[in-house]
C-alpha cells in the first residue's frame, strides 16, 4: 500500500507537466529564429538573446534587482537577528504583539503596501529613489528572515552560552563567538529566502519604482503589458536559467525543502 498505483503515477506525470509547461514554453520560444512569437520549428537561434544586449534597460534593471536584493536582505538580517534573539529567549510584556507586528507584512496584500508606500514616499521625498525601494523591501522580506532565525535561535542549547559567560566572556564576545556561529545556518538561509523574495517582488515595486530605478520583474511586467515579443521570452528564459542554477546549488548546499518548509529533510 505504500507504493503509488498506475493511476497515481499518471496523475503525477500530468501534474508535473502542468507545472513545467509554461516554463518550458518560455524557454522554447526564446530560441525562435523568427521575428515574431513562434515555436522554433525551423532550427534554433540565439538572435533574441543577442538582442538583449541592444536593450541596456533590461541589463540595468537586472543589476538594480541584484543590488536591491543584496542590500535589503542584509539590512533585514541586521534588524531581524536581535529581534529574533529577544523573542526567542526572553519573556517580556508585549512579546507576542511584537512578534505579530514583525510577521504582519505577510498578511498585508502587496498591492496595499505599494499604494501605502507610493503615498508615503512621495510625501517625504523618497518617491522613485533607490533608498525608498530598499526600505520598502526590508519591510516585506523581514518576516521570512525572522521566521528562519527564530527557528534557529529557539532550538539552540543555552548551556553553551552560560558556560562562555561563566568563563568570563563579555556579552558581546559571547554573542560573536558562541551565539552567532550557532544560529548562522538560520541567518544564512534567512538571507537567501529574503533575497529571493526581494528579487521576485513585482506587485508592490511597480508602484514605487521609477523609470530610472526599477527592477527586472517590474521592467518585464510593464513591457509585457504593452506587447509580448520573443525578446521578453528571451529575458524570461535567461532569468529562468539563472534561477534553476541557483536552485540546484541551494538544494545541494542547504536543501530546498528545508528552506521553504523550515524543517530538516527526513
Amino acid at each position, binding site marked *: 500500500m*505504500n507504493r503509488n498505483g498506475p493511476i*497515481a503515477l499518471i496523475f*503525477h506525470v500530468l501534474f*508535473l507537466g*502542468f*507545472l513545467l*509547461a*509554461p516554463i518550458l*514554453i*518560455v524557454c522554447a520560444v526564446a530560441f525562435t529564429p523568427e521575428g515574431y*512569437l*513562434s515555436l522554433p520549428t525551423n532550427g534554433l537561434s540565439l538572435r533574441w538573446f543577442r538582442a538583449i544586449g541592444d536593450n541596456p534597460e533590461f541589463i540595468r534593471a537586472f543589476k538594480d534587482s541584484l543590488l536591491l536584493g543584496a542590500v535589503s536582505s542584509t539590512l533585514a538580517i541586521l*534588524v531581524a537577528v*536581535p*529581534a529574533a*534573539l*529577544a523573542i526567542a*529567549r*526572553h519573556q*517580556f*510584556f*508585549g*512579546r507576542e504583539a*511584537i512578534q505579530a507586528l*514583525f510577521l*504582519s*507584512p505577510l*498578511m*498585508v*496584500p502587496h*498591492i*496595499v503596501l505599494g*499604494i*501605502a*508606500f*507610493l*503615498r*508615503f514616499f512621495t*510625501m517625504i521625498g523618497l518617491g522613485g529613489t533607490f533608498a525608498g525601494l530598499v526600505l520598502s523591501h*526590508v*519591510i516585506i522580506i523581514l518576516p521570512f528572515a525572522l521566521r528562519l532565525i527564530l527557528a534557529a535561535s529557539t532550538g539552540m542549547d543555552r548551556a553553551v552560552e552560560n558556560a562562555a559567560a561563566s568563563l568570563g566572556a563579555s556579552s558581546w564576545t559571547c554573542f560573536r563567538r558562541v551565539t552567532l556561529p550557532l544560529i548562522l545556518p538560520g541567518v544564512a538561509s534567512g538571507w537567501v529566502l529574503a533575497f529571493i523574495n526581494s*528579487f*521576485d517582488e*513585482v506587485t508592490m515595486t511597480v*508602484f514605487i519604482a521609477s523609470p530610472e530605478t526599477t527592477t527586472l520583474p517590474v521592467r*518585464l*511586467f510593464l513591457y*509585457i*503589458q504593452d506587447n*509580448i515579443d520573443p525578446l*521578453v521570452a528571451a529575458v*524570461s528564459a535567461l532569468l*529562468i536559467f539563472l*534561477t*534553476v542554477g541557483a*536552485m540546484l546549488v541551494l*538544494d545541494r548546499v542547504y536543501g*530546498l*525543502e528545508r528552506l*521553504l518548509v523550515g524543517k530538516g529533510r527526513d
Partner: protein
Amino acid sequence: MSMAASSETDAPVPATAAAPPPPRRHRWPLVPYLLSAPGLALFAVLLLVPLTMTFLLSLNSFSFYGGIQDVWQWGNYADIIADDYFHEVFLRTFRIAALVTVLCAVFGAPEAYILRRMKSPWRGLCLLVVLGPLLISVVSRTLGWALLFGSTGLVNQGLMALGIIATPIEFMYTETGVVIALTHVLVPFMVLSVWASLQRLDPQVENAALSLGAGPLTVMRRVVLPQIIPGILSGSIIVFALAASAFATPAIIGGRRLKVAATLAYDEFLNTLNWPLGATVAVLLLVANVVIIVGCNRLVERRYKQVFE
C-alpha cells in the same frame, strides 16, 4: 509596555531579600526591548504610518479638476457599496480566488500524498520540480501561460487534437485563463502545506489499518484524510488570500478589461489618478484579507487542536 518595563526595573530591592539572585540574563528586562527596538522603529515608521495614511487618504474626496480634496467623509466607501461595477469586480475577485483554492486543494493534496510515497532519488527530484516554480518570477511564469493560451495557441491545438473540444476556447482575457494561471502560480503552496502535515503521519498506521482488514478507500477516508485536513485547510487560507490579492497574473492574463480588486486599485492610482478611491479599494482588500486569514486560522486551530498539539 513601557510601564511594565519601568515597574520591574524601578522596583525597590528589599534589603532583607534572602532569595538567591535570579539568572543574570533575566534580571534586566530592558534587554529584549532594546534588541527589538530597531525593528520596532522601522515598522512603526514604515508600516504603521503608511497604512494609517492610506486609510486617511481613503476618506478624502477627489474631483477631476481639483485633484485630492482635503475633506473627511465616507463617500468613497458609499460609492463602492452603491455601484454595481465595483460589486462585479469584488465578486469576480472572490469567485476567482474561491475556484483557485478548490482547484489547488483538489490537485495539490493528492500530489503531496503521491510525493510522500515516492522512493528516495525520485522524491527529491520531483519535490524540486514542484517547489522550484515558487522561486521563478511570477511574471515569467505568467508569460508562459500567455504564450500557451494566446500567441502559440498550443493549449487549444492540443485540446482539439485530443478531440476534447471542437472549437478553440478563449483563454486570454477570460476568468478561465486567470484561474488556470493562478492555480499554477499558487498550487506549490498547497503542496507545501499538505506535505508538512503528512510529515506527522506515520506510514505504519496505514499498514496497521490495512492489516486489520480495511480497504484502500477506507484507509484513505478514515486514516489519511483526517490527518491531512488541517494541512489542506491552512494551505487553502494561504492560497485564497494570495489569489484574492493577486496582481501580476490577472493583469497580464485578464488584461485591462477583466478587472479584479488589485488591478482596479492599480488603475485608479496610476491611470485614473483617483488616489482616494484607489486607497478605499486597498483598505477594503486589506480588511477582507486580515479578517479571512485571522478568522479562518482561529477556526481551523480550534477545530483541529489535537492535530496541532
